[in-house]
């Protein structure tokens, strides 16, 4: 899933201070799971904003709405009935959601309330780690299910580098060396031979080096 973290309150306040009526829009998917922009976080941020405005003797109307999926035009449509009664939209979804809303309601200013971080997975309650960089040509089948693109600090395709130490990466003592993990896993699977094969330079056009990417499915298009 896509992970995110709330922006500093000051930055959010800077964005929305000029407005008297705001829609605060959450998303029921990724940002709900990583507790950054679901219904609960929408309520908490709205409350913090109310406290701030009340302190300055202002009452700002904050409409709390959490969409099923903010990056889907059909759900973005659900704001239609509210849009005329608002001055600005504050979105708690990832950047995909913010942009979907901004594109649909281009007559209103749309601001992000979270910083979108990475594609990751939950390793334990309350902890998420980066797992994939969407390189467009997945290598997991030959790297024992461990991604060198996202999890090796140098994105090496033929690691490890000289910085590996006791299974850890040189960037920090609590970061696993992805290539160490790959080697251990391949060994456990009896696939050491695979490790000996030199991987060729990756075509990073599929990873975004060729400009914004797009998927077209003719079978699904209307």
């Amino acid at each position: 899933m896509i992970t995110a973290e709330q922006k500093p309150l000051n930055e959010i306040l800077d964005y929305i201070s000029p407005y008297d009526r705001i829609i605060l829009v959450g998303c029921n998917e990724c940002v709900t799971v990583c507790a950054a922009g679901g219904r609960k976080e929408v309520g908490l941020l709205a409350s913090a904003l109310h406290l701030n405005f009340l302190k300055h003797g202002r009452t700002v109307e904050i409409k709390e709405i959490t969409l099923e999926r903010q990056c889907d035009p059909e759900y973005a449509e659900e704001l239609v009935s509210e849009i005329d009664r608002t001055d600005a939209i504050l979105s708690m979804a990832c950047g995909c959601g913010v942009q979907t809303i901004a594109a649909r309601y281009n007559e209103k200013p749309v601001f992000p309330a979270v910083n979108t971080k990475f594609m990751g997975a939950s390793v334990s309650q309350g902890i998420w780690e980066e797992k994939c960089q969407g390189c467009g040509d997945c290598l997991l089948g030959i790297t024992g299910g461990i991604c060198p693109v996202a999890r090796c600090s140098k994105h090496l395709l033929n690691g490890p580098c000289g910085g590996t130490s006791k299974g850890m990466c040189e960037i920090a003592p609590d970061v696993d060396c992805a290539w160490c993990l790959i080697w251990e896993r391949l060994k456990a699977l009896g696939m050491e031979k695979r490790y000996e094969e030199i991987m060729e330079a990756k075509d990073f056009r599929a990873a975004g080096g060729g400009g914004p990417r797009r998927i077209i499915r003719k079978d699904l298009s209307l």
Partner: protein
Amino acid sequence: MKIFEPEIVAFCCHYCAYTAADMAGSKRISYPANVKIIRVPCTGKVDAIHIMKAFEKGADGVYVAGCLQGDCHFKNGNTRAKYRVEQVQIILGDLGWEKQRVAMINMSAGMGERFARTALEFTQTIKQLGPSPIKITHTDINQQAIRF
């Protein structure tokens, strides 16, 4: 000048602090009437949003009173409550409010005296801090209205 009497909301766990408040009552130990108790089945049920809503509605201070560390009837409800109190402290700090307006307090069901003492101490802390910034604004506005 009118003496400032703060409004304080105390979320009290049914198994400890609420019973301790009862105990204080039956022992005739008084505690400030400023403290309004809300009984909860476990402090783990108190979410950050409940504390925030109390402030929004004008509370000058809020505290969550749960069982002693390790004694939660539902294993770790009081630990969760502690983290949520810390979360609200961060939010208040970001808003420029005093973090001491919200606190986590632990006690057992038998600690009637402790309940009364902490209620008194927290009330004194809030009295020193003064009214919630929301109320200050309201009074400022009212005073201005009078002056004009």
